[in-house]
């Protein structure tokens, strides 16, 4: 035992001869083939998968893989042929069911077969690069069943028929459809696409082509769009229910193309219901739908935008060129605002605030608002109306809202300088007549203008407010100083206005009644007593007066009249009857003003405190006026004639235009010089472009005018043509040094032309050079002794602020004291602030100064008694 125990055993493999049964492969395959048959025949429950797996394993192991694989292919093919036949045999609606059922069976069978043949799938197939079992099953299904001639076309026809039925409103078995399309997708994307999707899209295109044709003939635009939208949603839903998600883009493209793109022009322009009608009828829903649908097709929105733009432009153009509309400026601007509101609402509510639409709207407004040259005036008139009465009793927020809207229109204006001109006039009238609703609103608008256009734009407007404030203080001081005798006599209220800040108006004088003259003199003495060296002149054309009047039967009224009217009425204190000529002589009111004021005194019903002989509407030189004893009015206070701003008459308008054109010249020239200073050499078109760019915040310069200015600068030797490319390049001739001190020196020591000096001075203003430099320049002006400097000097002065003005005046006073007698006249003419200078002048030789331009310095408006 021990020996036995010691003997080491060696374990060896069990040696038996492997008998290769020559029929082994055949036999094994038979078993497997049988199993496959059973599987397809639903008898799989009796099969031993373990055994079958082993058999398959052994076959592969014994290098019969090839046989196994080819056997599988043959067997499966034959089964699929059977299936194919049975599917073909299915009748009508059962066809899809049968196909679906068989497909499910096939899948199940494939599952089992793959399990049995797992080993082959894992080893033999990868090594021999054959198709794996599952895929093989799919491929065979595709080739044998789906691509069988009878099935392929029938399948498509039935699928498309189902879709068609669904489109026309019938209910179909979506689950079945889903299974079938799922099958096609399982068979590979190319099968789904080639066998189904491609044809589906074609069929759909045909369908929608016909349908859209039918719709467009029978529906209006809104209805059509509704239908198109519904169809589009249906297709999207369909895809989500029983198609590949990737089909969504393709089918929606088809719908978009057939239903929208192909008809978009016709839709937009559809008579009575197209885009324009939608805008007119404010159909926000339809517009929104159109936006959403057209956004889907290339150029769709471009088309919508273009049509909208041209519509806005056309209607805008009609609006601004309609002579009826132009009669009422306030209504005109209100109409513009309403229009803007309407389009804004369309864009916000229907076009999802699309930036490109907003831009199109803005450019359209800019286009047509500038078609009429009256727009700046009218917008200013609109503001005037609002600030006079329109905003009375309105909350602060609402005021802001209105002002913001006005600013929006203002932004569209190309000629902002013209607006400024009118605004100044209207503001002056408002301030002087005390008619402004709220100073807050006034100031708020000025702040807005300042933000929009900068300090320069509003500095004079702000100066006007300052004057009003100062005048209040002055009047308080005046009344305080006048104590007792005031009570009986007329009350005077004076506004002292700084020349330059206020719109220039021709000084018109008239003979004031003696009572008024007295108090005016008192004020003059008081004012000049506190402000030596200033000059006052009365602006009688802008004042108002309250008169207490007693009529025939003792009825008393208070009459609110203009200064001119007061002068006329005061004449009737001494007499009952005056001829036109007598009135004219006594008052010396300018003819047109006198006629207007007599008309409002004698020809307006209910306010006719005078009677006219003969009775007629117009005033003739031969008329006679009588005090109207029988005047009655149910009001105690009677307001006669208004100074409300009115739209300008055509000749006045022309005149304003001309003044603006003149004002623009130096601005254009300054811009050219600024540009040329920086660029030195530039071709013509670029100069024009840059000048336009620089000035567009104020106005749009005409290229021809720019050309004229350039030529003028060439003539005055500021610019020169390039010697070689004379048409292309211009070159700044008079080179200005950046170092102003050096320049001063240079100017003094060189023979620069007067124009160059003028230019330089003006340049300094624009460049905001230091005051000492500017005033030094002016100090030197006298030595050149040319009237052209007036412009430059004035230009500088207007841009100085108060502290600098003093400094400047000091310099000028010195220069006068030094005795530049020859230039005194031009200097003084240019002075807006001559208090100290006038003194110096008087000291030198006041007698030589012509009265006419000394008078011009100050204007006093608003005279009350």
């Amino acid at each position, binding site marked *: 035992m021990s020996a036995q125990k010691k003997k080491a055993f060696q374990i060896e493999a069990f040696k038996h001869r492997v008998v290769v049964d020559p029929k082994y492969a055949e036999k094994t395959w038979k078993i497997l083939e049988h199993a496959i048959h059973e599987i397809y025949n639903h008898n799989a429950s009796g099969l031993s998968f373990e055994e079958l797996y082993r058999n398959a394993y052994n076959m592969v192991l014994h290098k019969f893989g090839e046989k196994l694989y080819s056997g599988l292919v043959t067997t499966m093919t034959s089964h699929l042929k059977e299936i194919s036949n049975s599917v073909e045999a299915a009748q009508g609606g059962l066809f899809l069911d049968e196909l679906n059922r068989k497909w499910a069976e096939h899948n199940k069978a494939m599952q089992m077969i793959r399990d049995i043949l797992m080993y082959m799938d894992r080893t033999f197939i990868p090594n021999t690069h054959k198709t794996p079992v599952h895929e093989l099953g799919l491929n065979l299904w595709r080739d044998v069943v789906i691509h069988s001639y009878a099935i392929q076309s029938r399948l498509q026809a039935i699928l498309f028929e189902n879709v068609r039925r669904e489109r026309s409103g019938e209910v179909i078995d979506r689950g079945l459809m889903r299974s079938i399309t799922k099958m096609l997708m399982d068979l590979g994307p190319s099968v789904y696409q080639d066998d189904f999707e491609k044809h589906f899209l074609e069929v759909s295109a045909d369908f929608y082509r016909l349908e859209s044709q039918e719709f467009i003939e029978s529906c209006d635009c809104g209805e059509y769009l509704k239908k198109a939208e519904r169809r589009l949603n249906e297709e999207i839903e369909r895809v989500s229910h029983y198609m590949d998600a990737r089909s969504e883009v393709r089918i929606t493209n088809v719908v978009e193309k057939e239903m929208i793109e192909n008809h978009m022009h016709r839709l937009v322009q559809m008579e009575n219901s197209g885009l324009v009608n939608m805008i007119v009828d404010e159909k926000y829903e339809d517009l929104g739908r159109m936006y959403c649908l057209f956004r889907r097709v290339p150029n769709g929105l471009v088309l919508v935008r273009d049509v909208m733009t041209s519509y806005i432009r056309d209607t805008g153009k009609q609006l601004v060129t309609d002579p009826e509309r132009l009669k009422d400026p306030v209504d005109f601007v209100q109409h513009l605002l309403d229009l803007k509101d309407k389009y804004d609402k369309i864009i916000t509510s229907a076009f999802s605030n699309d930036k490109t639409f907003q831009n199109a709207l803005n450019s359209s407004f800019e286009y047509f608002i500038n078609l009429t040259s009256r727009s700046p005036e009218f917008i200013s008139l609109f503001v005037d109306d609002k600030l006079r009465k329109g905003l009375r009793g309105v909350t602060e927020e609402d005021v802001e809202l209105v002002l913001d809207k006005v600013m929006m229109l203002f932004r569209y204006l190309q000629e902002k300088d013209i607006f400024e001109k009118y605004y100044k006039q209207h503001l002056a009238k408002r301030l002087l007549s005390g008619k402004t609703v709220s100073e807050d609103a006034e100031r708020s608008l000025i702040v807005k203008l300042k933000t929009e256009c900068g300090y320069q734009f509003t500095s004079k407007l702000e100066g006007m407010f300052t004057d009003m404030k100062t005048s209040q203080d002055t009047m308080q001081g005046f009344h305080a100083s006048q104590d007792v005798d005031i009570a009986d006599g007329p009350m005077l209220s004076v506004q002292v206005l700084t020349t330059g800040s206020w719109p220039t108006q021709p000084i018109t004088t008239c003979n004031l009644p003696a009572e008024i003259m007295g108090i005016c003199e008192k004020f003059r003495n008081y004012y000049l007593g506190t402000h030596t060296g200033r000059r006052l002149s009365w602006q009688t054309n802008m004042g108002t007066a309250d008169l207490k009047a007693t009529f025939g039967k003792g009825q008393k009224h208070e009459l609110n009249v203009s200064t001119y009217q007061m002068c006329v009425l005061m004449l009737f204190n001494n007499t009952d009857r005056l001829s036109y000529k007598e009135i004219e002589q006594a008052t010396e009111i300018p003819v047109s003003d006198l006629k207007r004021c007599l008309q409002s005194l004698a020809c307006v019903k209910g306010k006719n405190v005078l009677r006219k002989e003969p009775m007629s509407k117009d005033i003739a030189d031969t008329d006679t006026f009588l005090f109207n004893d029988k005047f009655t009015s149910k009001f105690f206070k009677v307001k006669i004639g208004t100074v409300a701003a009115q739209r300008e008459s055509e000749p006045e308008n022309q005149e304003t235009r001309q003044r603006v054109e003149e004002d623009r010249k130096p601005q254009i020239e300054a811009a050219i010089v600024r540009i040329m200073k920086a660029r030195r050499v530039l071709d*013509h078109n670029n100069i024009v472009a840059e000048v336009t760019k620089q000035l567009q915040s104020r106005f749009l310069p005409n290229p021809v005018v720019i050309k004229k200015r350039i*030529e003028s600068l060439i*003539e005055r030797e500021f610019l020169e043509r390039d010697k070689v490319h004379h048409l292309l390049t211009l070159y700044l001739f008079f080179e200005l040094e950046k170092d102003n001190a050096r320049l001063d020196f240079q100017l003094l020591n060189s023979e620069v032309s007067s124009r160059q000096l003028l230019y330089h001075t003006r340049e300094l203003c624009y460049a905001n050079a230091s005051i000492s430099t500017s005033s030094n320049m002016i100090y030197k002006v006298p030595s050149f002794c040319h009237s052209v400097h007036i412009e430059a000097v004035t230009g500088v002065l207007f841009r100085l602020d108060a502290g600098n003005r003093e400094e400047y005046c000091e310099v000028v006073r010195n220069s006068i004291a030094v005795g530049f007698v020859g230039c005194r006249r031009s200097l003084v003419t240019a002075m807006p602030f001559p208090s100290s200078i006038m003194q110096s002048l008087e000291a030198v030789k006041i007698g030589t100064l012509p009265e006419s331009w000394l008078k011009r310095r100050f204007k006093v408006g608003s005279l009350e008694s």
Partner: protein
Amino acid sequence: MPPRASKRKSAPPNSSSVTSSDGRSVSNKAKTKGMDKIDRLFNTYANSSLGMIDPEGIEALCSDLGVDYTDVRILMLAWKLKAEKQGYFTQDEWQTGLKALGVDSLTKLKKALPELEKEVEEPSNYEDFYIYAFQYCLTEEKQKSVDIESICELLNLVLGVQFRPQVDSLVEYLKVQNDYKVINADQWINFLRFCKEQISFPDLENYDATQAWPLILDNFVEWMREKQS
């Protein structure tokens, strides 16, 4: 344009320049003799109280030369002499000018005129002459422009030969338009450029009004186009 400027400086022998002092040293005597003759000729026409040839003198000179005093050649002579003031030749101008022409007698001067004409027509001299013609018309102190009527005559005189159709139309236009009463130097020089710059005439197809042409030419072209259509 540097070549023109230098030409203008060096061409006439200036009395103070190096060349002329050299010349004097070489043949001082001959020169002086020539100068004498030139001076004598000068004195024939000069107004003794003014010390220069005045308009009457120029008229006499013209009739002796056998040319009309409005002839372009007289203008060319003035250009050659660099006469500063219209209707007058100073002695200095006369001396340097005649010397530059290389003539010292009336007959020689007469013979030199065709030569002078050729000289002027050389492209390098022509613009100079053209500008000179304008400046020659500025008779007043600080005058910068010339009235339309004189400009028309001047155009005929200096451009008429070379650019007859252009000048005819331009003159016609200048006479009918009301925008301009005078022409300045810039406009004048651009008339020449307009003619020279191959602007196809009379259809004016390649004229571009957006370029820096003076406005008066823009207007002229517009007038022409309107007239043609």
